[in-house]
């Protein structure tokens, strides 16, 4: 190991430290140097405020165990806090997971009382959620219709940023992440809200564009051809 070439570079920034790590050397060497560098840094004031640390590993794949290991080393200094570990490399499994979380699942149906519709990713429901029905997604929920049942969005990681969108918002309960809100309105009052959703489609039989009530369209099965029906 040439002593002149530094494997770990510590950069000070306004918002904390950035540790830039060599992406070509052995991981073991990286750990050794990291420990040495941290130990040698006399300017890391032991009594100062908490400093946030970002780690840039470049084009190196680091596993969850390795991430934990890095965090452990840095957290052995009380006032250092790892904010993020950034790597340019993803495994296929991780990529699939991200894709799963970001995809929009389109469903054309009515979620009736007692039925549960649960998806990974974002849910686009074309149809109603009736009282007693439940829709749940790891991401956002979009209802093109009336939401009168229970909707739980953000049921994956970092769920607090999820949103619930509905054309008619009259839910019995909403849940985003771990937070629940309930509707204080009277059930009968909610039921009286009126809406009329219309859907335009090309009718093969008459060769014209037809506009029909969306519930009628769902019933006729005219919608599913462009959507992945589940």
């Amino acid at each position, binding site marked *: 190991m040439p002593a002149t070439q530094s494997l770990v570079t510590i950069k000070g920034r306004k918002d904390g430290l950035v540790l830039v790590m060599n992406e070509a050397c052995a991981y073991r060497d990286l750990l050794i140097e990291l420990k040495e560098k941290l130990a040698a840094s006399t300017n890391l004031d032991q009594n100062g405020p908490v400093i946030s640390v970002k780690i840039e590993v470049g084009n190196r794949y680091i596993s969850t165990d390795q991430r934990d290991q890095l965090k452990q080393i840095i957290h052995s200094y009380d006032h250092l806090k790892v904010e993020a570990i950034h790597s340019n490399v993803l495994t296929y499994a991780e990529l699939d997971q991200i894709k799963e979380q970001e995809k929009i699942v389109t469903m054309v149906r009515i979620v009736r009382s007692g*039925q549960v519709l649960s998806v990974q990713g974002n849910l686009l429901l074309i149809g109603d959620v*009736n009282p007693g029905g439940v829709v749940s997604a790891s991401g956002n929920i979009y209802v093109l219709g009336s939401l009168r049942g229970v909707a739980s969005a953000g049921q994956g990681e970092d769920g607090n940023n999820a949103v619930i969108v509905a054309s008619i918002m009259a839910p019995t309960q909403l849940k985003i992440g771990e937070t629940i809100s309930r509707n204080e309105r009277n059930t009968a009052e909610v039921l009286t809200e009126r809406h009329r959703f219309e859907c335009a489609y090309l009718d093969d039989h008459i060769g014209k564009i037809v506009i029909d009530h969306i519930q009628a369209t769902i019933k006729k099965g005219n919608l599913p051809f462009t959507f992945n029906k589940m």
Partner: protein
Amino acid sequence: MGEAIVVTSGKGGVGKTTTSANVGTVLALQGKKVCLVDTDIGLRNLDVVMGLENRIIYDLVDVAQGRCKLNQALVKDKRFECLSLLPAAQTTDKDSIQPDQMKKIIDTLKADFDYIIIDCPAGIERGFKNAVAGADHAIVVTTPEISSVRDADRIIGLLEQEKQVSPPRLIINRIRQHLLKSGEMLEIDEIMNILAIDLIGIVIDDDGVISSSNKGEPIALNPSSKAAMAYRNIGRRILGETVPLMDLDEKQGFFHRVKALLGMR
């Protein structure tokens, strides 16, 4: 080959048995061969409403368990030659028969009758599964109450999973005009908006229904009552006729007036 229609609701007490009895009666009045099947084992009522209780020798469970032939268990109606009843057993419970046994019995009946009306018990358990097993079509009965509509919604969801049953159709039962007038009852439009299935009829709440049930005479036999007219219209719609929703139209006029008063639409 006949058609089997299950009459169901989820909730109890909304008028499944009364509807079964009257729909069966009006189809028989039209000269169709009809068999009513009571699947409410342990709580049988259809025989009482039809006034045929004293003629029961064998029942559905006897047929399923091979204690008698199907024909022996059928009770002929005293008024119509073409109307029969397959009564439920009263001494056992719903678990004494399996859905596949039920389907076999209904399939056998379909060979001899034009319409088989299956009266379903309340609930979504074994009794419901038995009743639906042999059905080709379904009629969901609801009343203009939130609880009843909620249960109907649940039942429609369950019926949609039964692949052999055609999309269910709806009867709104026990409509009370004075409550509609005061706006204290769910409107038909609202119910249709939630349930989103085809409406096959609406029946006005009629005191005559109770008194005729007690006498064992389906109200449909008394053409002067509004409920009887409603059932007759339902019967004609089942036969494929296009009958306008006469009562609904009448009330729609009324709805429009209310809406106009409230400045809606």
